[in-house]
């Protein structure tokens, strides 16, 4: 079974992402990588919790004074929706309908970018309030945790875009199906991390 072989709907396997050994390896390797990423974010969360509201002088803004819950709630909804649209994209990948997959991925990417735009706006807002990366240990920890997530979102978007452009003309194959699949896995992971950020940073930030 050659990886670039053309498939009909009838011959396209039910799980194209794991139909080849390379695909299987990629799939498993990526899951393991996400395991490592989980520990990475866990360490960042722990650091954030240890340094939350640790500021050099009492006049500085703390979590409960800062966070914009409506804004971050909107961001949460956008990212959750983008996770859903990427699920649709993968559904179409499994059904060998390349164009539909591309469309849903495009929607995912657009949602991702709007999330990023809101995040940039949010950071900018805090910086104007005097809560910056260098203003306090709390600031450093906040921007590092949320910023790491933002960097992951950016990387995920670039990944989706380059996959979509690279494969726009040649459609699905067993060579690129695993690539699309792990990219969407990554996207789900980013989404899950955000749910934790929303809970631990923003919601728990409000209660003090």
């Amino acid at each position: 079974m050659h990886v670039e072989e053309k498939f009909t709907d009838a011959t396209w396997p039910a799980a194209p992402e794991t139909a080849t050994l390379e695909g299987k390896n990629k799939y498993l390797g990526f899951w393991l990588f996400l395991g490592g990423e989980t520990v990475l974010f866990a360490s960042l969360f722990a650091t954030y919790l240890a340094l939350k509201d640790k500021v050099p002088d009492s006049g500085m803004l703390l979590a409960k004074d800062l966070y914009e819950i409506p804004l971050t709630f909107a961001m949460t909804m956008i990212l959750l929706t983008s996770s859903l649209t990427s699920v649709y994209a993968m559904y179409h990948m499994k059904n060998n309908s390349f164009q539909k997959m591309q469309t849903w991925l495009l929607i995912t990417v657009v949602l991702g970018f709007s999330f990023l735009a809101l995040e940039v706006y949010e950071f900018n807002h805090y910086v104007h309030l005097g809560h910056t990366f260098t203003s306090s240990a709390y600031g450093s920890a906040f921007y590092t945790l949320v910023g790491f997530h933002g960097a992951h979102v950016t990387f995920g978007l670039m990944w989706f875009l380059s996959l979509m452009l690279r494969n726009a003309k040649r459609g699905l194959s067993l060579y690129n199906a695993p690539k699309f699949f792990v990219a969407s896995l990554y996207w789900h992971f980013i989404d899950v991390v955000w749910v934790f950020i929303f809970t631990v940073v923003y919601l728990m930030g409000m209660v003090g």
Partner: protein
Amino acid sequence: MSTYAKKQGFGATLWDFMTTVDHKKIAILYLISGGLFFILGGLEAMFIRIQLAVPDNNFMSAGVFNEMITMHGTTMIFLAAMPILLGIMNAVMPLQIGARDVAFPFLNSLGFWMFFFGGVMLNLSWFLGGAPDAGWTSYASLSIHSQGHGVDFYVLGLQISGFGTLIAGINFLVTIINMRTPGMTYMRMPMFTWTTFVVSALILFAFPPLTVGLTLMLFDRMFGANFFDAAAGGNTIIWEHLFWIFGHPEVYILILPAFGIFSEILATFSRKRLFGYSSMVFATVLIGFLGFMVWAHHMFTVGLGPIANAIFAVATMAIAVPTGIKIFNWIFTMWGGSVRFTVPMLYAVSFIPSFTMGGVTGIMLAAAPADYQYHDSYFVVAHFHYVIVGGVVLGILAGITYYWPKIFGTMLNETLGKFTFWLFLIGFHLTFFIQHFLGLWGMPRRVFTYLPGQGWDISNLVSTIGAMFMAVGVIILLINIIITSVKNVRVGNDPWGDGRTLEWAIPSPPPFYNFKQLPLARGLDAYWIEKMEGKKEMTPAEPLGDIHMPNGSIIPICITFGLFVASFGALYNMDADKPWTIPVIIIGLLITFGSMLIRSIKDDHGFHIHKEDLMDDKDKEVKA
């Protein structure tokens, strides 16, 4: 297709190694560069011991001494021990499970180059204004306080090489899970493969906390963040936690592969299967698991409170149980066997009492109130050298000698090997045994000198003399390697004669596709089983067919080189007088991400070795 066997010029060989994705060649790269770093770290150790040979010595200044100890520790752990072990894993593990390569050959190469450039970066600090001087643990208050760029080199060098190790870990995990040959169930895997498996899992979960810790330090030192600045609300204990959440599993990342190597050697040269194989597997997994639960025993004196100290003390003691199981299983592997004392076996045998010594002092250290006395004294130095030299380094020396014929196709000289062994072993005990007492007599670790009249003089001299013995042993090993390579007497599949596992069923060194036909593993010690039935070869698990192989690539070097360049930009970014730093960061990242983009856009399907060519090979073998 048989071009690989032709003689190559130096340039072509170099290019071949720079672009190779073959696990066996990458193993050689790991061994060579790890070996070079081992010599560097060893020289640093010698300088340390010379400085401490007599009280009030002026061999080197206090500042240089601190750079020495920092670089000795960092080099030995990250750039010598771990890479050499990764090299042995790379060379052996795929063969042991009957695989043609690792799961991600490209990433395997990337992982090596990241380690290599990270190591080079770290060592360049010697020439660029001074090495890091805050100890290999680089505790935050001191490392933030440290002047110059030394600690920046530490942070960036370890960050880059850490990524490399993480990649290697994931790669091995996937390889072991997905690419075992038919019949090779988990409970038929050789012990060394098992330890590789557990170690890879430890790498996967232990390195991210280090990555985070290093990132925080990088942000603090280079971009004005306040994680460890108490005045701005920061907290230095965070670094200690992150470092040891990584650092303790790291100890097991080092020792478990050595356990694996010894398990193979003891079984081989006792002509007996490993005693209590399943409990050995269980103990390995348990040690790996407990390894994550005990990090705070490095922090008993930090002031975490009696509850934390008591819990971590008891948890630490618990690790003695699975380790004890292993020690007794090794002894009983020899029991009733037919023990032959080859050089690898000498190392394995001497490892048992040496490591037991290190293990029991580990238990003594776990007793928190007593640890208040041991902590940061020479007792601790003695303890961890007993486990790391008496465990890991003996394991490395054993593994290198044992697998040398498999990797290079020729045997190291046994007589010279025995000289190395005795000198090293005697020197090791001479150096470190006395240090237990130095610690108890009140000598703190990491002191660049000591005053006379505190009762430490003779013991320190003894320790230095011991170190000389070890150095001579290593020099003889190097001579041995040169002589062996020049003579280059070729050996067959199973040069030790008692091989049990799959790697001994194929030529030494193996052809680049390893197995012409994947072998069928019919039990633990698959090759032994066939041998006992009078067969010379493994039963194939598949008909002879085309073999799919990956292409070599220069891209891993390019990706890493970009990071290397960008690091220099980041490093000097905080100096006001250097406007070139930002462009350098950008250029470096462009090289890295550009190379990654090329990798993802350019399809690389590898190539096939055709059945007919494989048959050619077989015919040739028959003729020869």
